Structures are given as C-alpha cells and as structure tokens.
C-alpha cells in the first residue's frame, strides 16, 4: 500500500544505537511513525516518496537537552519558531527548552503555552520547567502538575539551587514524580563579578575568573543528595575535570546521575578568548586545556551521557559591548553535529554510532522521551540524515537562528546534515 504521507529513506546506513542496528537499510515512515525497517530494496514501492540516503547516515532524530528558545519574553533574541528552524538545520528534531524566560516558566500554563501549535515550532519542543518558583531558589514548583503539562525535567538553569535543604527536597520530589532535576552547577558565591575561567588568561586580561571549584563543589554536594534521595540528578554543561571525576565515581556507585557536555567545552579553551572576544564568553566558561582534554576522555569512556548545545542566542547589541558587560552564551544548534564529527570522530576516533547515541538515544533515555531516540518500528518518525564526510564552512551570517553569536563563524568542518525529518515530514534539506 502506498500513500502520499509516507516516505521511504532508501540506501542509507541506519545507525540506531538503542536497537543495536548499524547497517545499510531502508526506513519506511508512515503516519508519523516508523512503519518498517528492512534490508535495502525490500520496501520498494510502499511509499509515496523516496529519499535517497546513499552515502549518508540515517539516525534517530537528534535531541538537544539544553536550549534557550527565549520565548516567552525575549523574542528579539530567538523565538520558538526560529529556534526550531535552527534546530532542524542542525539535525535536531527535538529540543528541551530551559525555563529562564520572561516570565520564568514555572507554571503548567506557560509550559503548555510553549507547546501550543500557535508558537509555530518546526520540531518538537519539550519544556524544562523551573524547579523553584520564579527560579528564585526559595520554594519548589509543583513538579507533578508541570510534568502533566508536558515538562520533561525541572531546572533553575543559570541560577543554581544552592540551598542544601531545597536541593534535597527537589531531588526527593523528583524521585517521587520520576522527573530529572537539571543542575547548572555553579557556586555563585565564588563567581560574583566573574566573566570567564580563572587562570593565566583571566589574569593576563585583568578579568575576574571563575574557579573550577565553583562547579565541582556543587556537583559533589548534589551527588551526595542524589545518593540520599534516589532522585535523578542531571548535570548541565559539565565543564571541569573535578566535576567529571565526581560524576564518574557516582556512576561507578550506581547512582542516578547523568551529565551532558557542550560542543564548545570539548573544543575550545579559555585562551581562545584572545583579546576580549565576547563570542567566547559563556557560562560555564571555557576552561583550561586540561579540563577540555578531560571532557574528551569522559566522552570516550562513557562518563558523559549526552552532547547538549546550551544554545543561547543574544542580539548583536548584547554582545558588541565591553567584555565584562556582554551577555553570557553562544548559539550552538547548527554546529553541534559538525563539531562532534570533526573533533570527536575525526580527531579522537570516536565511532560515529557513539556520536549518534550522544545526540539521540542517550538524551531520549535521560529525559524519558517515549518513542524518541530510536528508529524501531512504531517509534516517532523523527530522523536525522547526515553525510559524515561532507566538508563545509559555517557562515554565521547565513545561519537560521535569529542571533549570530557564535565563535565558530568561518570554521570548516566535516559532517553535514542532509535532511531532518519530524513526524515523517522533511522539515530541512541541506
């Protein structure tokens, strides 16, 4: 039976880590689901349209656990519509949106508003709701109600939960309602007035620097609390070797702890700030080469579960100012895959299926996204198709994000998204 709402992805190398698949196969999508996966040619004639994926990897749609879509309230930086177009261009079919919007997403109403069709999202948007009311770190939000409204995790991202008792309560509630708590691990008592990592570069530039201990101490405390409460702790944008070691030990102890890293943290170092380039200013900051190398080792040995972008768009006028006054954050959706392939696969020989897992099956598992992160029959028809050998140069001025604040403008990469499919519909073709 054929149909116009069906699509056959033919001749690609299907990499589906959750199903243990890595071979040339055809994938049939129908009615928003994966209808069948079979040997090449077996599904011929069953779809209204065929996409020739020869030479490409056909992977479960990528899931970004950490983006800032800036809606509601900061549409001059990004909107849910523009952010999801940028996501599609980067192969991401699903993005998890942080709650530090204006107002803060601490209610079922805003959580639902973000998922409303009126937002014009090109892909799936999964809100991460605030863990405390207004992200003020005083009173927990209603995790159960937020989860019912569609929140996939809770976090006060950007504003860490420092109070020991409150974080303990959050993890206890998280255990009860089966929802992860995402921690931006930064002891802000150690980082007031800081604009970058503490080290020789911050000293040379005369800029206050954030010590590694500000991240590691919070991660270590949170792990102790996770041990006590059994709540799922997810460490956002892990950036220091000390925090990585803590996560490694926690995992050895069987604790419910997961961690993500960003492409910029495993690629760049604080010295790249050069002479006050604000496109290298983000939080957590770029760290030392020793930290960067440790993160790569942590990816290779499996301590790191996911690659997340921390896509943080800002308008020109928020970055073209004095370094210390510039906003923290860079865009990341459109370059993540290319950086992962260029750095981790080409340079450090990480097999491509591992990169696919870091971008799809692992994130789906961490936030319990049912039917995502796999191409098994019956799964959501979210697919990322990419050519791992295609060489290209990123031109920020041509990027789909509303904002252009990226340090990777002009960088040449291997690995490019060829097509992104959400719910069986091709939403991007590169």
């Amino acid at each position, binding site marked *: 039976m054929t149909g116009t709402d069906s699509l056959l992805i033919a001749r690609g190398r299907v990499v589906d880590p959750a199903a243990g698949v890595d071979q040339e196969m055809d994938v049939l999508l129908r009615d928003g689901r994966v209808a069948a996966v079979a040997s090449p040619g077996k599904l011929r004639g069953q779809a209204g349209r065929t996409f020739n994926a020869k030479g490409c990897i056909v992977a479960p749609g990528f899931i970004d656990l950490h983006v800032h879509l800036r809606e509601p309230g900061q549409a001059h930086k990004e909107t849910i519509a523009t952010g999801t177009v940028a996501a599609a261009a980067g192969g991401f079919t699903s993005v998890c949106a942080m709650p530090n919007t204006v107002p803060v997403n601490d209610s079922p109403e805003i959580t639902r508003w973000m998922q409303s069709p009126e937002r014009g999202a090109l892909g799936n948007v999964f809100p991460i709701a605030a863990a405390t009311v207004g992200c003020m770190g005083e009173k927990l939000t209603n995790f159960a109600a937020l989860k019912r409204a569609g929140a996939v995790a809770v976090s006060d991202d950007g504003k860490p939960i420092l109070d020991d008792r409150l974080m303990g309560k959050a993890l206890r509630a998280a255990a009860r309602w089966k929802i992860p708590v995402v921690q931006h691990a930064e002891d802000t008592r150690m980082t007031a007035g800081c604009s970058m990592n503490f080290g020789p570069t911050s000293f040379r530039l*005369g*800029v206050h620097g954030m010590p590694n201990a500000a991240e590691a101490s919070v991660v270590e405390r949170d792990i102790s609390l996770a041990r006590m409460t059994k709540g799922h702790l997810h460490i956002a944008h892990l950036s220091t070797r000390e925090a990585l070691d803590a996560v490694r030990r926690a995992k050895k102890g069987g604790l419910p702890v997961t961690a993500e890293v960003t492409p910029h943290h495993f690629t760049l170092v604080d010295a790249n700030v050069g002479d*006050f380039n604000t496109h290298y200013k983000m939080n957590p900051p770029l760290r030392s080469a020793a930290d960067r190398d440790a993160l790569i080792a942590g990816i290779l040995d499996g301590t790191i579960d996911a690659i997340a972008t921390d896509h943080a768009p800002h308008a020109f*006028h928020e970055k*073209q*100012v004095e*370094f*210390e006054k510039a906003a923290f954050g860079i865009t990341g959706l459109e370059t993540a895959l290319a950086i992962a392939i260029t750095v981790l696969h080409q340079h450090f020989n990480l097999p491509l299926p591992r990169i696919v897992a870091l971008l799809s099956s692992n994130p789906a598992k961490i936030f319990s996204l049912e039917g995502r992160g796999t191409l098994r029959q019956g799964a959501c028809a979210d697919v990322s198709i990419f050519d791992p050998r295609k060489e290209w140069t990123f031109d920020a001025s041509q990027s789909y994000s509303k904002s252009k604040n990226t340090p990777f403008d002009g960088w040449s990469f291997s690995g490019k998204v060829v097509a992104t499919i959400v719910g069986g519909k091709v939403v991007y073709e590169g």
Partner: protein
Amino acid sequence: MKPQLHALLGIEQLTNQQIEAMLALARRMDPSRPSQLLHGKRVALLFYESSTRTRTSFEFAAKTLGATTTLVTPVSSSIEKGESLIDTGWTVASLGADAIVMRHANSGAVYLLARYVQVPIVNAGDGMHQHPSQALLDALTITNHKKKLRGLRVVIVGDVYHSRVARSNAELLSRFDASVVFSGPPDLVPEVAATIAPGVTVCHDLNIALQGADVVMALRVQRERLAGKDISVEDYMASYQITPQRMKLAKPDAILMHPGPVIRGMELTSEVADGPQSCIHEQVRNGVKTRMAILAMLLGAARTE
C-alpha cells in the same frame, strides 16, 4: 625604518623596536618648549573613570605639541543617557577627532573601541588590564637611572591582582630581560600572576623579595580591596609597607617608584615617598614627555632618524 603604530592598546601589541623608538623619542621631548608638531590635530580625551595624572599629562602633552583637546566624561554627556561605547566612539570620531585617548573601568574596553572606530586609539588604562603609557614612562624613568633594563631586579609590591600598572610593567620589563618579582599578600598577589610573562616570579615575603632589588615599585592599596580578605590593614602595613628600614634591604642605589595616587601611610611612609631614592615626581614629569612621544608617533608626526 620608521616603526608604524596605529594604536596603543597594550604592551603586548608593541614590538621591542617600537618600545625603544618611543622611549628614544620621549627622551627628546621637552614639555617646557611648545611646538607645532601636531598643529591642527584634535585629540579627544574619553575618560569613563576619574584620573588626575594621566588625563592632565595627556592634555598637556597634546597642547604642548600644538594639538587641541576636548574632554568627554560620562557625566554631562550622552554616555549617561545610555549610549554604547561603540556609538560614543563613532560620534567622537565623526566629530573630527584625530585620536582618542580612553580611560575605562572595564578591562578590554579599548579593544572594543579599536575594533569599530577607525582613528588611532590610546589606552589610558582599561580596568585591571593594561596601562601602557604608564609602563613606558616607568621604563623611561628606570633607564634614566639604570641605563639599561636587562638584568635588573624590579620588585612590584602591593595589590598586583587589581593593577593594570603591574601587568603592563611586568610585560614590558620582561621583554627587555629584567626580572620582575611580585610581592604582597596571597589574596592580592595570586600564584597565577607569575604566568603573565617570562622572568616574572611571585614572592609573598617582601623582606626576601627586596634583597638585591634595583627598583622598588609600590602600588596603591585601597582599604576597601582588603575588606573580606585574609589580611587586615594592620597586617598589610606590618608585612608590606615600604619603610626606610625595608628600603635598606634593596641595593644602596635602588630607586623607589609609585604610579600614584599615593596613599601615604598605607603602601609606603612619607619618609620613603619624599626620600632621596624616590622617583615619584620624576615619573610624573616623564609622563608628559612619554605621552608627547606617544601622540606624535600615533598621529604620524614624529621624525625618527
């Protein structure tokens, strides 16, 4: 060969040849004899932070060379209305400034200005980062007494962490093979300070640091910067204040310097500030000469043979 110079942002951007040419030119400058070298040139003094010495000496330097100057400060300008640094820079340049001398509280602000504004920019101090004209005038002062920088032991004492003077001096002196010792309490002189340039070390015991010193450079220590630190004001003075007794630990012909403003009774005593080894007034005089040389070179009017 004429060393071309388009901006003076920090010591790092200067070649040794440019530094030497600037010092040679500064030696020939005479603030008591006005000239018309920069006749018709307009120098804007964009001062986001207060300053006595630096502002006045740039102004006198420009005027002595026949240039006109205008002062722009945040108060009573569009800066207090929220104008961005880039827009203020464009405005000053469009009004006809031939050079902009800027003092700013944020490290690196001058780099931002230089990236977007196409007139020569002079850094008159940016946050904790750089104060290149101070390092140049200090090098002029030192070489007036010591002939050459190579092999000298220069001890910089005080709040190194917050000091753009310390950073600029360490970078310049290191280039010419002087050894620089930073001294002060660990809170104000972190170990990482030694990474700023080759030949720079950190010594938290001032009495050891001073031994064999050719130059003792005291930095201003603000009481409020000691607040919340591990050291009290009394402890600071007991351990790090430059006194006549401590000066005796240095070489007999050592000179005493201070970039100003001096907080008498804090980082040094009046006996030292006004004593025979003090070069503090000479530094200020050299400031005018050095800034005359900087403006002449940047505005392309310097004759270097």
